[in-house]
Protein backbone atom coordinates (compact mmCIF):
# COMPACT_ATOMS: atom_id res chain seq x y z
CA UNK A 1 0.00 0.00 0.00
CA UNK A 2 1.17 3.55 -0.73
CA UNK A 3 2.39 5.70 2.13
CA UNK A 4 -0.06 8.60 2.04
CA UNK A 5 2.10 11.24 3.67
CA UNK A 6 3.58 14.34 2.19
CA UNK A 7 6.49 16.44 3.44
CA UNK A 8 7.35 19.87 2.08
CA UNK A 9 10.78 21.42 2.51
CA UNK A 10 11.18 25.06 1.50
CA UNK A 11 14.47 26.61 0.44
CA UNK A 12 14.34 30.39 0.18
CA UNK A 13 18.02 31.20 0.58
CA UNK A 14 20.12 29.20 -1.89
CA UNK A 15 18.87 31.16 -4.86
CA UNK A 16 17.47 34.63 -4.18
CA UNK A 17 15.47 34.56 -7.42
CA UNK A 18 13.67 31.36 -6.64
CA UNK A 19 11.72 29.78 -3.81
CA UNK A 20 12.22 26.05 -4.09
CA UNK A 21 9.72 23.67 -2.49
CA UNK A 22 10.73 20.02 -2.32
CA UNK A 23 7.91 17.47 -2.28
CA UNK A 24 8.47 14.13 -0.58
CA UNK A 25 5.79 11.45 -0.60
CA UNK A 26 2.41 11.40 -2.32
CA UNK A 27 0.04 14.12 -3.41
CA UNK A 28 -3.27 12.33 -3.03
CA UNK A 29 -6.62 12.93 -1.42
CA UNK A 30 -5.28 12.02 2.04
CA UNK A 31 -2.21 14.26 2.07
CA UNK A 32 -4.11 17.05 0.35
CA UNK A 33 -6.42 17.32 3.36
CA UNK A 34 -3.54 18.43 5.56
CA UNK A 35 -1.24 20.16 3.08
CA UNK A 36 -3.60 21.98 0.72
CA UNK A 37 -3.65 25.25 2.64
CA UNK A 38 0.12 25.29 3.07
CA UNK A 39 0.62 24.78 -0.66
CA UNK A 40 -1.96 27.41 -1.62
CA UNK A 41 -0.36 29.92 0.74
CA UNK A 42 2.69 30.07 -1.52
CA UNK A 43 0.63 32.08 -4.00
CA UNK A 44 0.63 35.02 -1.62
CA UNK A 45 3.84 34.35 0.27
CA UNK A 46 6.32 33.84 -2.57
CA UNK A 47 8.54 36.87 -2.97
CA UNK A 48 10.75 36.15 -5.98
CA UNK A 49 9.34 35.87 -9.50
CA UNK A 50 9.69 32.09 -9.64
CA UNK A 51 8.23 29.41 -7.43
CA UNK A 52 9.79 26.06 -8.10
CA UNK A 53 8.18 22.75 -7.12
CA UNK A 54 10.78 20.01 -6.98
CA UNK A 55 8.98 16.72 -7.64
CA UNK A 56 12.09 14.54 -7.43
CA UNK A 57 10.80 13.01 -4.19
CA UNK A 58 7.16 12.85 -5.25
CA UNK A 59 5.90 9.31 -5.84
CA UNK A 60 2.31 9.92 -6.85
CA UNK A 61 -0.02 12.73 -7.84
CA UNK A 62 -3.80 12.52 -8.25
CA UNK A 63 -6.03 14.59 -10.49
CA UNK A 64 -7.20 16.86 -7.69
CA UNK A 65 -3.60 17.71 -6.85
CA UNK A 66 -2.87 18.41 -10.51
CA UNK A 67 -5.79 20.82 -10.45
CA UNK A 68 -4.26 22.51 -7.42
CA UNK A 69 -0.86 22.86 -9.11
CA UNK A 70 -2.49 24.34 -12.22
CA UNK A 71 -4.50 26.74 -10.11
CA UNK A 72 -1.31 27.95 -8.39
CA UNK A 73 0.32 28.41 -11.79
CA UNK A 74 -2.63 30.45 -13.01
CA UNK A 75 -2.72 32.65 -9.92
CA UNK A 76 1.02 33.30 -10.03
CA UNK A 77 0.77 34.23 -13.70
CA UNK A 78 -1.78 36.89 -12.74
CA UNK A 79 0.90 38.40 -10.50
CA UNK A 80 3.54 38.20 -13.25
CA UNK A 81 5.21 35.32 -11.47
CA UNK A 82 5.60 31.75 -12.58
CA UNK A 83 5.50 28.20 -11.32
CA UNK A 84 8.10 25.75 -12.58
CA UNK A 85 8.26 22.02 -12.00
CA UNK A 86 11.43 19.95 -11.87
CA UNK A 87 12.43 16.32 -11.60
CA UNK A 88 9.03 14.62 -11.92
CA UNK A 89 9.35 10.82 -11.78
CA UNK A 90 8.23 8.84 -14.81
CA UNK A 91 4.74 8.04 -13.56
CA UNK A 92 4.12 11.60 -12.32
CA UNK A 93 5.54 13.05 -15.53
CA UNK A 94 3.30 10.82 -17.64
CA UNK A 95 0.14 11.81 -15.80
CA UNK A 96 0.99 15.52 -16.10
CA UNK A 97 1.95 15.08 -19.74
CA UNK A 98 -1.24 13.23 -20.68
CA UNK A 99 -3.43 15.87 -19.06
CA UNK A 100 -1.61 18.58 -21.01
CA UNK A 101 -0.25 20.34 -17.93
CA UNK A 102 3.05 21.06 -19.68
CA UNK A 103 1.20 23.31 -22.10
CA UNK A 104 0.84 25.64 -19.12
CA UNK A 105 3.76 24.87 -16.83
CA UNK A 106 7.41 24.42 -17.68
CA UNK A 107 9.18 21.31 -16.52
CA UNK A 108 12.89 20.61 -16.23
CA UNK A 109 14.53 17.28 -15.62
CA UNK A 110 16.68 18.68 -12.80
CA UNK A 111 17.49 21.81 -10.85
CA UNK A 112 20.73 22.16 -12.83
CA UNK A 113 18.77 22.11 -16.09
CA UNK A 114 16.57 24.85 -14.72
CA UNK A 115 19.55 26.96 -13.66
CA UNK A 116 21.24 26.45 -17.02
CA UNK A 117 18.08 27.56 -18.75
CA UNK A 118 17.84 30.59 -16.49
CA UNK A 119 21.44 31.44 -17.26
CA UNK A 120 20.82 31.23 -20.99
CA UNK A 121 17.73 33.37 -20.67
CA UNK A 122 19.64 36.02 -18.71
CA UNK A 123 22.40 36.06 -21.34
CA UNK A 124 19.86 36.46 -24.12
CA UNK A 125 18.41 39.45 -22.29
Amino acid sequence: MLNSTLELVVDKKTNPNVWKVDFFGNLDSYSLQTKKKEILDYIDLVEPATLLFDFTGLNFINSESIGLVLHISEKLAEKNKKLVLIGAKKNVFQVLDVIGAFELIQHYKSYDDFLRNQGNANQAN
Partner: protein
Amino acid sequence: MLIRPTKKIYWNLLMVSLFAIAMALFLKFVLQIEFWPWQWVIVAFIGYFAAVILIYLINVSWPFKVVLDQVKALLTGRKYKKILTKRTDEIGIFAHFFNEVTTDLEKVTVDLEESKKVSGELKTAGQLQKELIPALAPTIEGFDIAVKNRSAEELGGDNLDFIKVGNSTYFYVGDVTGHGVPAAIVMTMVNTLINTFAEIYDTAYDVVVQTNRRLKTRIRATMFMSMLMLKWNGLTKKMTYVGCGHEHLIVYKARTGLVEATVSGGIALGMLADNSKIVKEKDVPLETGDVIVLYTDGITEARNMNGEMFGLERLKQVVALYAGQGDAQRIIQSIAKDFSKYVEEHVQEDDVTLIVIKKLSEGEEGRSSVDQKQARWTDENAVDKAETLPTEKAAV
Protein backbone atom coordinates in the same frame (compact mmCIF):
# COMPACT_ATOMS: atom_id res chain seq x y z
CA MET B 1 -24.75 -6.81 42.99
CA LEU B 2 -22.46 -5.58 45.75
CA ILE B 3 -22.55 -1.97 46.79
CA ARG B 4 -20.05 -0.80 49.41
CA PRO B 5 -21.89 1.23 52.07
CA THR B 6 -20.93 4.88 52.20
CA LYS B 7 -19.94 6.86 55.28
CA LYS B 8 -23.47 8.16 55.52
CA ILE B 9 -24.82 4.67 56.07
CA TYR B 10 -22.34 4.02 58.87
CA TRP B 11 -23.46 7.24 60.52
CA ASN B 12 -27.07 6.13 60.16
CA LEU B 13 -26.32 2.79 61.76
CA LEU B 14 -24.61 4.47 64.69
CA MET B 15 -27.62 6.71 65.21
CA VAL B 16 -29.93 3.72 65.16
CA SER B 17 -27.79 1.87 67.67
CA LEU B 18 -27.85 4.83 70.05
CA PHE B 19 -31.59 5.08 69.56
CA ALA B 20 -32.04 1.41 70.47
CA ILE B 21 -30.03 1.88 73.65
CA ALA B 22 -32.00 5.04 74.49
CA MET B 23 -35.27 3.13 73.96
CA ALA B 24 -34.15 0.35 76.29
CA LEU B 25 -33.15 2.83 79.00
CA PHE B 26 -36.48 4.62 78.61
CA LEU B 27 -38.41 1.38 79.00
CA LYS B 28 -36.42 0.40 82.11
CA PHE B 29 -36.18 3.66 84.04
CA VAL B 30 -39.14 5.68 82.83
CA LEU B 31 -41.79 3.12 82.17
CA GLN B 32 -40.43 0.79 84.86
CA ILE B 33 -40.67 -2.23 82.56
CA GLU B 34 -38.44 -4.94 83.80
CA PHE B 35 -36.25 -6.62 81.23
CA TRP B 36 -33.76 -9.25 81.81
CA PRO B 37 -30.38 -8.12 80.40
CA TRP B 38 -30.38 -10.79 77.71
CA GLN B 39 -33.81 -9.58 76.56
CA TRP B 40 -32.39 -6.10 76.14
CA VAL B 41 -29.64 -7.49 73.93
CA ILE B 42 -32.13 -9.34 71.76
CA VAL B 43 -34.34 -6.25 71.43
CA ALA B 44 -31.31 -4.15 70.57
CA PHE B 45 -30.09 -6.61 67.95
CA ILE B 46 -33.53 -6.94 66.38
CA GLY B 47 -33.90 -3.17 66.30
CA TYR B 48 -30.40 -2.82 64.89
CA PHE B 49 -30.91 -5.23 62.03
CA ALA B 50 -34.36 -3.86 61.30
CA ALA B 51 -32.78 -0.44 61.01
CA VAL B 52 -29.99 -1.77 58.75
CA ILE B 53 -32.50 -3.33 56.43
CA LEU B 54 -34.62 -0.18 56.37
CA ILE B 55 -31.64 2.03 55.63
CA TYR B 56 -30.46 -0.32 52.90
CA LEU B 57 -33.87 -0.24 51.29
CA ILE B 58 -34.14 3.54 51.46
CA ASN B 59 -30.54 4.46 50.56
CA VAL B 60 -29.47 1.69 48.22
CA SER B 61 -32.09 -0.69 46.92
CA TRP B 62 -34.81 1.76 46.08
CA PRO B 63 -32.59 4.37 44.33
CA PHE B 64 -30.77 1.61 42.45
CA LYS B 65 -34.10 0.27 41.26
CA VAL B 66 -35.00 3.72 39.96
CA VAL B 67 -31.79 3.82 37.88
CA LEU B 68 -32.17 0.21 36.77
CA ASP B 69 -35.74 0.82 35.58
CA GLN B 70 -34.58 3.65 33.31
CA VAL B 71 -31.70 1.51 31.96
CA LYS B 72 -34.18 -1.29 31.20
CA ALA B 73 -36.47 1.20 29.45
CA LEU B 74 -33.52 2.40 27.30
CA LEU B 75 -32.42 -1.10 26.39
CA THR B 76 -35.91 -2.27 25.48
CA GLY B 77 -36.70 0.75 23.36
CA ARG B 78 -39.28 2.22 25.73
CA LYS B 79 -39.49 5.83 26.80
CA TYR B 80 -36.94 6.69 29.47
CA LYS B 81 -36.37 9.67 31.73
CA LYS B 82 -33.26 11.48 32.88
CA ILE B 83 -32.39 10.69 36.49
CA LEU B 84 -32.24 13.73 38.72
CA THR B 85 -29.91 13.27 41.68
CA LYS B 86 -27.37 15.18 43.70
CA ARG B 87 -25.78 12.02 45.03
CA THR B 88 -22.09 11.58 44.42
CA ASP B 89 -21.85 8.02 45.71
CA GLU B 90 -21.85 4.89 43.54
CA ILE B 91 -25.52 5.20 42.73
CA GLY B 92 -25.06 8.88 41.91
CA ILE B 93 -22.19 8.02 39.55
CA PHE B 94 -24.33 5.34 37.88
CA ALA B 95 -27.19 7.83 37.46
CA HIS B 96 -24.90 10.53 36.00
CA PHE B 97 -23.35 7.96 33.65
CA PHE B 98 -26.82 6.96 32.44
CA ASN B 99 -27.69 10.61 31.80
CA GLU B 100 -24.44 11.16 29.81
CA VAL B 101 -24.97 8.05 27.72
CA THR B 102 -28.54 8.98 26.85
CA THR B 103 -27.52 12.56 25.94
CA ASP B 104 -24.83 11.26 23.58
CA LEU B 105 -27.23 8.72 22.18
CA GLU B 106 -29.76 11.43 21.39
CA LYS B 107 -27.08 13.44 19.54
CA VAL B 108 -26.03 10.37 17.55
CA THR B 109 -29.64 9.60 16.67
CA VAL B 110 -30.15 13.11 15.29
CA ASP B 111 -26.90 12.83 13.28
CA LEU B 112 -27.95 9.42 11.96
CA GLU B 113 -31.29 10.74 10.80
CA GLU B 114 -29.60 13.67 9.08
CA SER B 115 -27.12 11.31 7.51
CA LYS B 116 -29.93 9.06 6.28
CA LYS B 117 -31.58 12.05 4.69
CA VAL B 118 -28.37 13.12 2.93
CA SER B 119 -27.71 9.55 1.87
CA GLY B 120 -31.20 9.35 0.40
CA GLU B 121 -30.65 12.56 -1.56
CA LEU B 122 -27.29 11.33 -2.82
CA LYS B 123 -28.90 8.11 -3.95
CA THR B 124 -31.50 10.06 -5.87
CA ALA B 125 -28.81 12.29 -7.40
CA GLY B 126 -26.80 9.19 -8.29
CA GLN B 127 -29.82 7.67 -9.99
CA LEU B 128 -30.43 10.85 -11.95
CA GLN B 129 -26.79 10.91 -12.98
CA LYS B 130 -26.90 7.27 -14.07
CA GLU B 131 -29.84 8.14 -16.26
CA LEU B 132 -27.63 10.66 -18.07
CA ILE B 133 -25.33 7.86 -19.11
CA PRO B 134 -27.12 6.24 -22.01
CA ALA B 135 -28.99 3.08 -21.12
CA LEU B 136 -28.45 1.98 -24.67
CA ALA B 137 -25.58 2.74 -26.99
CA PRO B 138 -26.90 3.73 -30.41
CA THR B 139 -27.04 1.09 -33.07
CA ILE B 140 -24.74 2.22 -35.83
CA GLU B 141 -24.54 0.36 -39.07
CA GLY B 142 -21.20 -1.35 -39.28
CA PHE B 143 -20.30 -1.16 -35.58
CA ASP B 144 -20.60 -3.33 -32.49
CA ILE B 145 -20.53 -1.27 -29.31
CA ALA B 146 -20.27 -2.36 -25.69
CA VAL B 147 -19.93 -0.20 -22.59
CA LYS B 148 -19.12 -0.96 -18.97
CA ASN B 149 -19.16 1.70 -16.29
CA ARG B 150 -18.99 1.56 -12.50
CA SER B 151 -18.74 4.52 -10.12
CA ALA B 152 -16.56 4.45 -7.01
CA GLU B 153 -19.18 6.41 -5.06
CA GLU B 154 -22.87 7.21 -5.36
CA LEU B 155 -21.98 10.03 -7.72
CA GLY B 156 -19.28 9.40 -10.29
CA GLY B 157 -16.93 11.60 -12.30
CA ASP B 158 -16.60 9.34 -15.35
CA ASN B 159 -18.59 10.64 -18.25
CA LEU B 160 -19.62 9.03 -21.52
CA ASP B 161 -22.25 9.48 -24.16
CA PHE B 162 -23.20 8.67 -27.73
CA ILE B 163 -24.83 11.41 -29.75
CA LYS B 164 -26.36 10.72 -33.12
CA VAL B 165 -26.74 13.81 -35.25
CA GLY B 166 -27.90 13.20 -38.79
CA ASN B 167 -25.42 10.84 -40.43
CA SER B 168 -22.77 11.39 -37.76
CA THR B 169 -22.29 9.85 -34.34
CA TYR B 170 -20.16 11.28 -31.57
CA PHE B 171 -18.74 8.98 -28.89
CA TYR B 172 -16.90 10.38 -25.95
CA VAL B 173 -15.45 9.22 -22.68
CA GLY B 174 -14.31 11.66 -20.00
CA ASP B 175 -13.03 11.82 -16.45
CA VAL B 176 -13.64 14.77 -14.13
CA THR B 177 -11.19 15.67 -11.36
CA GLY B 178 -12.07 13.71 -8.24
CA HIS B 179 -15.49 12.18 -7.75
CA GLY B 180 -18.60 12.74 -5.65
CA VAL B 181 -20.95 15.70 -5.88
CA PRO B 182 -18.63 18.35 -7.48
CA ALA B 183 -17.43 15.93 -10.17
CA ALA B 184 -20.99 14.82 -10.92
CA ILE B 185 -22.09 18.43 -11.41
CA VAL B 186 -19.23 19.12 -13.83
CA MET B 187 -20.01 15.89 -15.66
CA THR B 188 -23.62 16.94 -16.06
CA MET B 189 -22.60 20.38 -17.36
CA VAL B 190 -20.21 18.89 -19.91
CA ASN B 191 -22.78 16.38 -21.07
CA THR B 192 -25.31 19.13 -21.65
CA LEU B 193 -22.82 21.37 -23.47
CA ILE B 194 -21.61 18.59 -25.78
CA ASN B 195 -25.12 17.47 -26.63
CA THR B 196 -26.02 21.06 -27.45
CA PHE B 197 -22.94 21.90 -29.53
CA ALA B 198 -23.10 18.59 -31.42
CA GLU B 199 -26.37 19.83 -32.88
CA ILE B 200 -24.83 23.18 -33.88
CA TYR B 201 -21.31 22.38 -35.14
CA ASP B 202 -20.14 19.91 -37.77
CA THR B 203 -16.81 18.81 -36.39
CA ALA B 204 -15.66 17.22 -33.16
CA TYR B 205 -13.00 19.94 -32.95
CA ASP B 206 -15.57 22.73 -32.84
CA VAL B 207 -17.73 20.87 -30.32
CA VAL B 208 -14.73 20.45 -28.02
CA VAL B 209 -13.47 24.03 -28.36
CA GLN B 210 -16.89 25.54 -27.66
CA THR B 211 -17.57 23.19 -24.76
CA ASN B 212 -14.26 24.12 -23.18
CA ARG B 213 -14.89 27.84 -23.59
CA ARG B 214 -18.22 27.65 -21.75
CA LEU B 215 -17.01 25.20 -19.14
CA LYS B 216 -13.93 27.18 -18.08
CA THR B 217 -16.00 30.10 -16.86
CA ARG B 218 -18.31 27.91 -14.83
CA ILE B 219 -16.17 25.55 -12.84
CA ARG B 220 -13.72 25.81 -9.96
CA ALA B 221 -10.16 26.72 -10.93
CA THR B 222 -8.87 23.41 -9.57
CA MET B 223 -11.28 21.29 -11.61
CA PHE B 224 -10.96 19.99 -15.14
CA MET B 225 -12.13 17.10 -17.26
CA SER B 226 -10.04 14.92 -19.51
CA MET B 227 -11.88 13.63 -22.57
CA LEU B 228 -11.47 11.64 -25.73
CA MET B 229 -14.09 12.20 -28.39
CA LEU B 230 -14.60 10.14 -31.54
CA LYS B 231 -16.75 11.12 -34.46
CA TRP B 232 -18.05 8.67 -37.07
CA ASN B 233 -19.18 10.24 -40.31
CA GLY B 234 -21.70 7.88 -41.84
CA LEU B 235 -21.40 9.55 -45.25
CA THR B 236 -17.62 9.63 -45.67
CA LYS B 237 -17.19 6.44 -43.60
CA LYS B 238 -14.40 8.09 -41.65
CA MET B 239 -13.64 7.98 -37.93
CA THR B 240 -11.83 10.92 -36.34
CA TYR B 241 -10.89 11.79 -32.79
CA VAL B 242 -10.07 14.78 -30.62
CA GLY B 243 -8.01 14.30 -27.48
CA CYS B 244 -8.36 16.56 -24.44
CA GLY B 245 -5.68 15.40 -22.05
CA HIS B 246 -7.20 11.93 -21.79
CA GLU B 247 -5.78 8.43 -21.73
CA HIS B 248 -4.38 6.74 -24.82
CA LEU B 249 -6.54 5.76 -27.74
CA ILE B 250 -6.19 2.00 -28.08
CA VAL B 251 -6.79 0.42 -31.48
CA TYR B 252 -6.52 -3.31 -32.23
CA LYS B 253 -5.64 -3.97 -35.88
CA ALA B 254 -7.31 -7.19 -36.99
CA ARG B 255 -5.00 -7.65 -39.96
CA THR B 256 -1.81 -7.76 -37.88
CA GLY B 257 -3.16 -8.64 -34.44
CA LEU B 258 -1.20 -5.70 -33.04
CA VAL B 259 -2.47 -3.12 -30.56
CA GLU B 260 -1.60 0.54 -31.02
CA ALA B 261 -1.84 2.94 -28.10
CA THR B 262 -1.76 6.53 -29.31
CA VAL B 263 -1.28 9.48 -27.01
CA SER B 264 -4.56 11.32 -27.42
CA GLY B 265 -2.91 14.71 -26.88
CA GLY B 266 -4.54 18.08 -26.37
CA ILE B 267 -5.29 19.60 -22.99
CA ALA B 268 -8.02 18.79 -20.50
CA LEU B 269 -11.27 20.75 -20.64
CA GLY B 270 -11.43 23.61 -18.16
CA MET B 271 -7.67 24.17 -17.91
CA LEU B 272 -7.40 26.94 -20.48
CA ALA B 273 -9.96 29.51 -21.55
CA ASP B 274 -9.07 28.87 -25.20
CA ASN B 275 -7.80 25.45 -26.19
CA SER B 276 -8.30 25.95 -29.93
CA LYS B 277 -4.56 26.03 -30.69
CA ILE B 278 -3.78 22.92 -28.70
CA VAL B 279 -6.50 20.36 -29.51
CA LYS B 280 -6.52 18.73 -32.93
CA GLU B 281 -8.91 16.47 -34.81
CA LYS B 282 -7.13 13.47 -36.31
CA ASP B 283 -8.14 10.45 -38.38
CA VAL B 284 -8.48 6.92 -37.04
CA PRO B 285 -8.01 4.57 -40.02
CA LEU B 286 -10.23 1.54 -39.52
CA GLU B 287 -10.69 -1.76 -41.30
CA THR B 288 -13.21 -4.55 -40.75
CA GLY B 289 -12.48 -6.38 -37.52
CA ASP B 290 -10.51 -3.48 -35.98
CA VAL B 291 -11.42 -2.66 -32.40
CA ILE B 292 -11.23 0.69 -30.63
CA VAL B 293 -10.98 0.69 -26.83
CA LEU B 294 -11.72 3.81 -24.81
CA TYR B 295 -11.13 3.80 -21.08
CA THR B 296 -10.61 5.98 -18.03
CA ASP B 297 -7.64 5.93 -15.69
CA GLY B 298 -9.73 4.05 -13.13
CA ILE B 299 -8.77 0.99 -15.20
CA THR B 300 -5.04 1.52 -15.60
CA GLU B 301 -4.52 2.93 -12.09
CA ALA B 302 -6.53 0.21 -10.33
CA ARG B 303 -4.39 -1.79 -7.93
CA ASN B 304 -4.31 -5.40 -6.91
CA MET B 305 -3.92 -6.66 -3.35
CA ASN B 306 -0.12 -6.21 -3.64
CA GLY B 307 -0.53 -2.55 -4.55
CA GLU B 308 0.55 -3.06 -8.19
CA MET B 309 -1.26 -1.05 -10.84
CA PHE B 310 -3.11 -2.71 -13.72
CA GLY B 311 -1.28 -0.35 -16.10
CA LEU B 312 -1.45 0.52 -19.78
CA GLU B 313 0.86 -2.30 -20.88
CA ARG B 314 -1.33 -4.94 -19.26
CA LEU B 315 -4.45 -3.39 -20.77
CA LYS B 316 -2.84 -3.52 -24.22
CA GLN B 317 -1.92 -7.18 -23.70
CA VAL B 318 -5.46 -8.01 -22.59
CA VAL B 319 -6.93 -6.22 -25.61
CA ALA B 320 -4.53 -8.07 -27.94
CA LEU B 321 -5.62 -11.36 -26.34
CA TYR B 322 -9.37 -10.89 -26.63
CA ALA B 323 -10.06 -8.33 -29.39
CA GLY B 324 -10.04 -11.00 -32.08
CA GLN B 325 -12.54 -13.17 -30.24
CA GLY B 326 -16.18 -12.40 -30.98
CA ASP B 327 -18.33 -9.32 -30.82
CA ALA B 328 -17.84 -6.19 -28.69
CA GLN B 329 -19.92 -7.63 -25.84
CA ARG B 330 -17.81 -10.76 -25.64
CA ILE B 331 -14.59 -8.75 -25.87
CA ILE B 332 -15.60 -6.36 -23.09
CA GLN B 333 -16.69 -9.19 -20.81
CA SER B 334 -13.36 -10.93 -21.26
CA ILE B 335 -11.40 -7.75 -20.54
CA ALA B 336 -13.62 -7.06 -17.51
CA LYS B 337 -13.11 -10.58 -16.23
CA ASP B 338 -9.33 -10.24 -16.47
CA PHE B 339 -9.54 -6.86 -14.74
CA SER B 340 -11.70 -8.21 -11.91
CA LYS B 341 -9.39 -11.16 -11.40
CA TYR B 342 -6.41 -8.81 -11.19
CA VAL B 343 -7.85 -6.33 -8.66
CA GLU B 344 -9.62 -9.04 -6.60
CA GLU B 345 -11.03 -7.47 -3.46
CA HIS B 346 -8.99 -4.27 -3.56
CA VAL B 347 -11.20 -1.26 -2.78
CA GLN B 348 -12.33 0.57 -5.90
CA GLU B 349 -10.82 4.03 -5.50
CA ASP B 350 -11.88 5.59 -8.80
CA ASP B 351 -14.68 5.28 -11.33
CA VAL B 352 -14.00 2.73 -14.07
CA THR B 353 -15.27 2.99 -17.64
CA LEU B 354 -14.57 0.83 -20.67
CA ILE B 355 -15.97 1.25 -24.19
CA VAL B 356 -15.31 -1.28 -26.94
CA ILE B 357 -16.17 -0.37 -30.53
CA LYS B 358 -15.69 -3.06 -33.16
CA LYS B 359 -15.73 -2.27 -36.87
CA LEU B 360 -17.96 -4.68 -38.76
CA SER B 361 -18.09 -5.15 -42.49
CA GLU B 362 -19.96 -2.68 -44.66
CA GLY B 363 -23.71 -2.97 -44.28
CA GLU B 364 -23.51 -5.40 -41.37
CA GLU B 365 -26.04 -4.61 -38.70
CA GLY B 366 -24.51 -3.26 -35.53
CA ARG B 367 -25.32 -4.25 -31.97
CA SER B 368 -24.87 -2.33 -28.76
CA SER B 369 -24.99 -2.85 -24.99
CA VAL B 370 -24.44 -0.70 -21.91
CA ASP B 371 -23.77 -2.20 -18.51
CA GLN B 372 -23.55 0.03 -15.46
CA LYS B 373 -25.45 -2.08 -13.02
CA GLN B 374 -23.26 -5.02 -12.11
CA ALA B 375 -21.47 -4.84 -8.79
CA ARG B 376 -18.55 -6.82 -10.15
CA TRP B 377 -17.21 -6.82 -13.65
CA THR B 378 -17.64 -10.49 -14.23
CA ASP B 379 -20.50 -12.17 -15.92
CA GLU B 380 -21.74 -15.73 -15.84
CA ASN B 381 -21.68 -15.79 -19.62
CA ALA B 382 -18.09 -14.60 -19.92
CA VAL B 383 -15.77 -16.81 -21.89
CA ASP B 384 -14.43 -19.52 -19.56
CA LYS B 385 -11.90 -20.80 -22.01
CA ALA B 386 -10.30 -17.42 -22.52
CA GLU B 387 -6.74 -17.40 -21.36
CA THR B 388 -6.08 -15.11 -18.42
CA LEU B 389 -2.83 -13.20 -18.22
CA PRO B 390 -0.61 -14.05 -15.23
CA THR B 391 -0.28 -11.33 -12.61
CA GLU B 392 2.88 -9.35 -13.17
CA LYS B 393 4.23 -5.96 -12.22
CA ALA B 394 2.83 -3.36 -14.54
CA ALA B 395 5.30 -0.86 -15.94
CA VAL B 396 4.96 2.46 -14.19
